[in-house]
């Protein structure tokens, strides 16, 4: 069995004259949580649509669960769970009934529904109709529908948008557990903190092309500005590079009792993105 669950190789896609994906190449090994980051309109959702056969590429190769996507069977898609940006459940049915429907569609016992409700923090709202749910509750219920059959490969498009911090943390914990059990996660998000928490590797996409792909820590180190910010008593705020000369300068400042505080200016993924593209999220 191939260890690469998902891969794209030189994939292009255009909508009319506009090229939306340009030579996209990456691969995701089994059990990895892979983050796909980028600003709105960069091509994140389009990539998920290609990987889930909602769109067809112009050129290039896509492999899904170890075989070319055009050869993927219905049985292969039973091993996949998808939470899209428009995933929605039935308004006039309760959360529990919606999850039971998806369990039945997937051939899973509805006995798994109470466990999912508990894990998603929806147990006490199980009988609430979807039309009476908050956005966060709907999002968690839709996530439950995508997880009901314990998929090997999970596509999540902005899974925590609309969730409060506690619910978001619970979803992150769930995703960590899924990954530990070997589930491969392909996650698109705007939330850089989420990507750092959940993903082992991230790809940054801009204007349809991947501009960087690595572990979050590696990306941060690679694009680190290596600066120290020093607040002094009389000389204001100083920015020093992490060099021998700066160390001497800092030592001098300490000797003169000038230093109020020293901060290492660690970059985050958002700054890495800015560095790479010059665009704001």
């Amino acid at each position, binding site marked *: 069995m191939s260890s690469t669950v998902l891969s794209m190789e030189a994939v292009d896609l255009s909508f009319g004259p506009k090229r939306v994906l340009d030579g996209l190449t990456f691969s995701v090994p089994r059990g990895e949580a892979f983050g796909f980051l980028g600003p709105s309109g960069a091509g994140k959702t389009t990539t998920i649509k290609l990987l*889930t056969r909602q769109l067809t590429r112009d050129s290039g190769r896509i492999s899904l669960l170890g075989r070319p996507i055009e050869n993927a069977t219905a049985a292969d898609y039973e091993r*996949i769970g*998808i939470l899209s940006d*428009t995933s*929605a459940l039935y308004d006039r049915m309760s959360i529990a009934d919606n999850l039971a*429907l998806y369990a039945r*569609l997937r*051939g899973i016992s509805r006995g798994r529904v109470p466990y999912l409700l508990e894990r998603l923090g929806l147990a006490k709202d199980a009988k609430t109709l979807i039309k009476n749910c908050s956005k966060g509750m709907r999002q968690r219920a839709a996530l439950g529908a995508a997880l009901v059959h314990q998929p090997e490969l999970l596509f999540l498009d902005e899974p925590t948008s609309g969730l409060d911090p506690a619910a978001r943390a619970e979803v992150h914990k769930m995703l960590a557990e899924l990954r530990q059990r070997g589930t491969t996660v392909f996650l698109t998000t705007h939330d850089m903190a989420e990507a750092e928490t959940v993903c082992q590797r991230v790809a940054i996409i801009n204007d349809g092309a991947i501009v960087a792909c690595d572990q979050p820590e590696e990306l941060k180190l690679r694009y680190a500005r290596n600066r120290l910010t020093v607040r002094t008593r009389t000389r204001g705020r100083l920015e020093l590079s992490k060099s021998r000369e700066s160390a001497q300068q800092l030592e001098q400042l300490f000797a003169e009792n000038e230093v109020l505080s020293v901060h290492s200016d660690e970059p985050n993924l958002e700054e890495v993105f800015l560095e790479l593209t010059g665009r704001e999220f």
Partner: protein
Amino acid sequence: MSPFLRKLGALLGKDAADLAKNPTMVLCVALPVGFALFYRFFLGDMDLGSALRDESATPVVASAVTYVVLSMGLCMSIGMGASMSLVYGIAEEKEKHTLRTLMLANVTANQIVLAKGILALLVTVATEILCFLVSGAPFSLFLPYVGFGILGAIAIILLSLVAGLASRDQMTAGLYSVPILLLALAPIFGSYSSDISNVVRFAPTGGMDALLHMAVNGTLTTAGAMVPLATTVVWIALSALCFSLLYKRLLRDN
């Protein structure tokens, strides 16, 4: 159980539960029954035979009333139960993205369409039966009535599936469902004049209505049934052709 049947069963259960909780759809089913009840007592109470001072006319008038009530029950059941529930049902699923969510859960368009078509037929037949029960018609007419109703519903269901898939949202569903509703109700308008009657007997439900008329009058013969049957079969064939030509294209557009 095969995955196909399992999913079909799940979709049927979901669609039935959803329909029962949808006030608009419940009204669509209740309306034909209400009208059948109203017409039965409204027309029946007029005792037209006596009013004409011709007691011998009473059985003829009773037969005419039975036909009007049953015909209206069939046409409205098909129009409201089949076309409205399908066109609005599919459009609502598209508008609220539940259809896409289902398809991302490895449910095929064929399974969704089949489940909706079967449910629409079941709802139509159930509504037709309720209309029959409140109509006071002799029970000897029950089997032909249901049989003709099923025949007449097939073409309308196929056309409604196409209209539902073509609808972007419930607003456009309102627009697209009107011509189908009018086609389904066409035989009712035939009672207004013989000219209209001559046209509407070639409507999708016109053949069904003509067969019902003959059954109520006791004039249903193999020879007489040929033209209405042929009309119905031609409409079913045309609707099936239209569905098969447009189905894949509509799926691609969606």
